[in-house]
């Protein structure tokens, strides 16, 4: 089976500064794959490079057999790569309902009623808050909204950038449970970037470790969890 997403030897620059130095990542359909790493390792840059902003200088990004390296972001999104970006980026002055509507703009709201019910069962809190402005939600609710909005696009691949950032452990648990449920019940493919290595590796089928813009390790989620190097660096209060 060919991978759904294949990042091949990608280098990304911000001006003259190299943020990614030859990254290779593969995500098979139906998998949850995570990328862990410290602050500034280049995890979010990888996420943004997959979405085409900034574009990779060398290497290529293949999605579903199609080279998307040089595509503009909105066209990549139209191939059903949905993203819950870093910092959530919900629309603060629009209501929860309208935010979800925006997520469904690809199909011009064709499956809207059906899909919104699904989102509301997944995140009942959003149903309670549906007529509230996005900006008035708590951090956890905003994260749910951001994921929900991405799901409204009926994605083939869901990209999550630090879904646990700044959230209470209980809420993180809930959100990760929701991701797991989506993966198991609907076969949704998920690629997530996380600093919370323990939770992310426990959730994922496979994981990658990124250091200074390069992938230094990869393997099954459990396998990485047990790896002494990973444990020392990311799990046992090591240096960040």
């Amino acid at each position, binding site marked *: 089976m060919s991978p759904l997403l294949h990042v091949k030897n990608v280098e990304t620059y911000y001006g003259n500064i190299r943020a990614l130095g030859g990254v290779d990542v593969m995500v098979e359909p139906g998998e949850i794959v995570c990328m862990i790493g410290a602050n500034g390792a280049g995890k979010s840059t990888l996420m943004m490079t997959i979405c085409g902003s900034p574009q990779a200088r060398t290497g290529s990004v293949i999605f579903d057999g199609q080279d998307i390296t040089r595509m503009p972001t*909105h066209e990549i999104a139209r191939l059903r790569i949905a993203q819950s*970006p870093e910092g959530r980026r919900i629309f603060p*002055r629009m209501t929860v309902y309208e935010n979800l509507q*925006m997520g469904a*703009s690809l199909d011009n709201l064709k499956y809207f*009623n059906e899909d919104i019910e699904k989102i509301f069962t997944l995140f009942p809190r959003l149903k309670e808050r549906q007529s509230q402005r996005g900006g008035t939600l708590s951090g956890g609710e905003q994260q749910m909204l951001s994921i929900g909005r991405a799901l409204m696009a009926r994605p083939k691949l869901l990209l999550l950038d630090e879904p646990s950032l700044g959230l209470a452990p209980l809420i993180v648990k809930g959100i990760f449970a929701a991701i797991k449920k989506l993966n198991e019940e609907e076969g949704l493919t998920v690629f997530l970037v996380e600093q919370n290595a323990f939770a992310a590796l426990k959730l994922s089928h496979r994981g990658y470790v990124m250091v200074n813009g390069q992938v230094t390790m990869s393997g099954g989620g459990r396998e990485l969890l047990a790896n002494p190097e990973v444990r020392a660096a990311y799990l046992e209060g090591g240096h960040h």
Partner: protein
Amino acid sequence: MANISSPSVADPHEEPSLMARAFKEAFFAGLVSLGLFCLFVGVETYQNINNELVWRMRWGLLAVFVGVAAVGRFLNVAFIRPALDKRKLAKAKSGILDVSEDKGFFHRHFLKIALIALLIYPPVSVMLRGVQGSLLLVDNFGIQILIYVMLAWGLNIVVGLAGLLDLGYVAFYAVGAYSYALLSTHFGLSFWVLLPLAGIFAALWGIILGFPVLRLRGDYLAIVTLAFGEIIRLVLINWTEVTKGTFGISGIAKASIFGIWSFDVGSPSNFAKAFGLPMSSAYYKIFLFYVILLLCMLTAYVTIRLRRMPIGRAWEALREDEIACRSLGINTVTTKLTAFATGAMFGGFAGSFFAARQGFVSPESFVFIESAVILAIVVLGGMGSLTGIAIAAVVMVGGTELLREMNFLKVVFGPEFTPELYRMLIFGLAMVVVMLFKPRGFVGSRAPSAFLHKAKNVSGSFTKEGHG
């Protein structure tokens, strides 16, 4: 219930200290306004016989300003605020919120009432002031305000909905006005042909401006649009072969009632002659009033419709977060360009109407301050809110026109006093006051364009699915 009591209100023993505080605050308010107005109002510059610029102090006027500030502050601290507090306290104690779900009759039918009032405005003013006397009411107040309402509603699409700060909006107004002026004088085309054409030209210019500024946002965008506005004005001044430069273009043809009746005095199908009425320019103005009213309604209708359509939602999402928009598959380039083009188009309509009304256009009418006034109306009204913007236009433009009529002030301040010169001062004061008390404008809250359970307000794309 929690013990809510403000000591200055509840405790009568505090009364003397309240007065003392009021005096103190009044004194400081006076001091601050003295400092503020000392140069603005206190100093008057003029030219003497030798053509030298000299200055003198206007102590009396300065004293009036300072006095108003001090007395106002005193009244506010000593009486108004305690009274308001007392009322709030009484309400809190009674435990009944006087916010009722049922809005008053006026509130519920505000739009209908406003529309009917506007429709009967010209006949009523003719009845009140006679045919000739109604000119002032219909033209200076009615048409003038409605032009600004339309311009502000047009700019609202760019600034209020799409969040693109445009300081050069008057350029599209100019493009519309000159399109009509030039095409009408050179090719003799009628108003009703040129109105849509002017809109299209302005929209084209909107796209031309849009392209280079696609990557800009916020203050950078503001600067570039400001420059664009100035470029258009300078072209109008310097391209003398076509635009006749600062002399402007005069003798622009009037609009006709769909070519059936004309308002030209010499024409055989003159409106007044056809109906056996005495000759007056008031008929033309009344006709124009209805034309601009119609244009305003069109602007409002299109804005309301667009807000519920995908493109309108995309504009609003773009204002909120451009990166999120892109990651949701929205093409931000076309979204921005359509916002610029649509906003510009309404500016163009208003411009061609302006040319038909004035019969004369010159670059003088399209200076930066016009852009600033239009933007101020949008901000004061509450970005995105059509009702708020209309109210702001009435207050701002109507207020300016009213100032011209306030001849009684000359009795107070002396015969040299020209109230309209204080326009900008009052304008600024009004803005500060509104922004202090209503930081989001008159109607600051954004009404959602879609709901789950309120079927009547759900956009068409849902109702198709049987959810409406």
